[in-house]
């Protein structure tokens, strides 16, 4: 095993609470009707290409990507399109979606290989792989949902030296990536090889936090057993510290390189991909299977049966909560994602999509906003910030709508990890204000660049 590495600036240690780590992935039964949102990635929602009354097959394309940063959407089930309408997403806003009345039996669209056999032979070349990833609508499944094919297109004049697989899973509670690593180890490793081929490099590094020893050992063992197949892949244990899985943090920890302010990771010669996305790449390239399902962790301290479920997109989240034993009495907050970066939901029946990594039910004691007081200038937020920013200052100037100052103080470098807010003894919602400042400042910078 390689010695443990980490990033050094800032970081916090929230309670891990990986309650569902030992629970195997279960297939989640689909309801009669599924509701598939057309906007499932960062960027523009897809254009709907089916009409009411059409019969769609599992894996059939139903929405085409619109614009550069956008991803295709496929039907997660076989059935008839009941309507193309709007549905409330987790924020409470209405978003366009396709309603599909499902048939019992899956009938797969043409060209999709339905098999559980491990396929290790990579037949496609770099360009074909990227096209396939694009066609299958794969996005970053850690939560940010950035289209994966855009990441793989290394710009002219740059070279990708490493493919880094982000298996840190530093968010407390979430265990979906961990379970996938344990249960689909070989498929995942082939996925890494495919990514390496796509960006033309022979180095692939899997970064995992050291609290997932089982996965580290299993991966090490598998790679050693099949040296010929997985040559060039290395497992790098990382210190258990939040946000170890931040893109910039994991690059720094593994390669020691720092992504310059305002630049993309490729500047450091790294392409960072999430575990679930890597598995999806395997399925897409080897089996031609588009992204229509993912693993969702449903968890919380007072949840009766927490679990890791393989969920087809469009399944309403409240069914998952029911399967986990229903909403316990003492729940005050339902969070889409993990406790650090996830967002509280406005409704619980929102459909699961590509970015839904977990559904976390927070108990009253955990979620209760303790009373907010004034900043005491303790500086803990600045110590915790992994980007070396001064959150107390950004909070103040954002509140005053002084966007010159937010820009000068590098608000755009904030990765929105929430470490500052987590550590603030005055309970100031620092991240809210910083996000506000970041959005406003970003808009100003964009307008200025267009001139």
């Amino acid at each position, binding site marked *: 095993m390689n010695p443990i590495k980490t990033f050094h600036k800032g970081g916090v240690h929230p309670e891990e609470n990986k309650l569902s780590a030992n629970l195997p992935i279960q297939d989640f039964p689909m309801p009669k009707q599924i509701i598939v949102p057309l906007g499932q990635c960062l960027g523009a929602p897809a254009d709907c290409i089916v009409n009411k009354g059409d019969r769609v097959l599992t894996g059939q394309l139903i929405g085409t990507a619109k614009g550069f940063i956008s991803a295709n959407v496929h039907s997660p089930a076989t059935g008839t399109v009941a309507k193309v309408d*709007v549905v409330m997403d987790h*924020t*409470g806003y209405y978003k366009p979606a396709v309603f599909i009345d499902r048939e019992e039996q899956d009938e797969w669209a043409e060209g999709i290989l339905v098999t559980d056999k491990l396929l290790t032979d990579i037949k496609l070349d770099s360009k074909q792989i990227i096209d396939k990833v694009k066609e299958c609508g794969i996005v970053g499944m850690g939560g940010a949902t950035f289209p994966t094919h855009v990441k793989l297109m290394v710009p002219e004049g740059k070279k990708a030296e490493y493919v880094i697989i982000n298996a840190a899973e530093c968010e407390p509670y979430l265990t979906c990536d961990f379970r996938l690593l344990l249960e689909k180890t070989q498929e995942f490793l082939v996925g890494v090889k495919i990514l390496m081929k796509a960006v033309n490099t022979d180095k692939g590094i899997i970064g995992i936090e050291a609290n997932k020893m089982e996965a580290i050992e299993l991966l090490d063992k598998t790679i050693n057993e099949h040296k010929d197949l997985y040559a060039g892949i290395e497992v790098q244990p990382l210190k258990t510290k939040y946000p170890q899985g931040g893109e910039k943090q994991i690059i720094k920890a593994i390669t020691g390189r720092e992504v310059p302010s305002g630049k993309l990771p490729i500047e450091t010669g790294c392409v960072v991909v999430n575990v679930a996305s890597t598995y999806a790449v395997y399925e897409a390239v080897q089996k031609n299977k588009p992204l229509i399902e993912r693993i969702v962790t449903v968890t919380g301290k007072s949840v009766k049966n927490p679990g890791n479920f393989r969920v087809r997109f469009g399944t309403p989240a409240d069914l998952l909560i029911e399967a986990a034993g229903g909403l316990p009495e003492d729940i005050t907050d339902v969070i889409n994602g993990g406790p650090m970066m996830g967002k509280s939901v406005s409704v619980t029946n929102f459909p699961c999509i590509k970015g839904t990594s977990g559904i976390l039910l927070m108990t009253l004691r955990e979620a209760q906003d303790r009373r907010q007081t004034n900043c005491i200038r303790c500086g803990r937020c600045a110590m915790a910030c992994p980007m070396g920013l001064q959150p107390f200052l950004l909070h103040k100037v954002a509140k005053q709508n002084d966007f010159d100052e937010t820009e000068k103080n590098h608000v755009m470098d904030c990765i929105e990890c929430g470490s500052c807010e987590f550590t603030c003894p005055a309970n100031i919602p620092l991240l809210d204000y910083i996000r506000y400042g970041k959005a406003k400042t970003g808009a100003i910078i964009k307008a200025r660049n267009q001139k």
Partner: protein
Amino acid sequence: MSNTLLISLAVLGILGGVLAVVLYFVAQKFKVEENPLIDEAEACLPGANCGGCGFAGCRALAEACVKQAAEKGNIDGLACPGTDMNKVAAVLGLTAGTFEPKIAVVRCNGSCQNSPSKVHYEGADICAFANTLYAGEGGCSKGCLGLGDCVKKCNFDALHIDKETGLPVVDPDKCVGCGVCARTCPRGIIEVRPRGKKDRRVYVCCSNTDKGALVIKNCSVGCIGCQKCLKECPFEAIEMRGNLAYIDPAKCKACGKCAKVCPRGSIHAINFPAPKPEVPALQGAEPAVKPQPKPEAQPVETKTEVKPENTVTA
């Protein structure tokens, strides 16, 4: 010792004298002629620099007035919402163009009673931020978030959030119709409309353009786009914007008929005489007639009669 003193004094004195002469000539050469009228005109303006006139500030408006007066001999189209433009015109030796007094109206009535909270918000108290985060406590994605961005921006202290309804209320005495609040609101809820004859005005107190079925889910007083008002209006002043009725103030004659037919009580008719108590049948359909006490200071009885601007349908 005294020599040093004398030399210093002499050097500084001569230096001062020479520089004064230089400065005098430079000042003469680069003198900017500024019309003293600008200062006078500016003195008539409130000095709030609110931008309601469309210029960068009060001085910019004053300059524009002086310029236009010199070129065209009038100041038509130039107006500070907070000032009697006749005063400015008098300074410039003119008569002011016509200027219709305006007022801000809040086009949302999704109070805590009408659109009960489904979730509880605990984030930053900025509407613009909350707007990016979620639909709203009541669930309406077009309704007021109640965090008071508009209140913070008003230069004239004319807005405050009503504690009971959670909605901003315009003080008709203080509002000058500058429209800063309307430009601030991330959801475009506030509109600046003409005050109307006798201060009577009719408007749709809702901003939700969604289909009726979606509106009903979250709010008991939102416009459902049934178009009853549109058919009722004798002056064709009402148009549909998506599934939302909009009353064009230029065409509206303030007859108040639409307000009576609206099944949702979405249309507010302000400052109309209260309906006579002997026709209780109308009560159900008639909105905006239940006066609500103003917060502190103002004696409830006297004010609510004359100024039902801050009324809500309970």
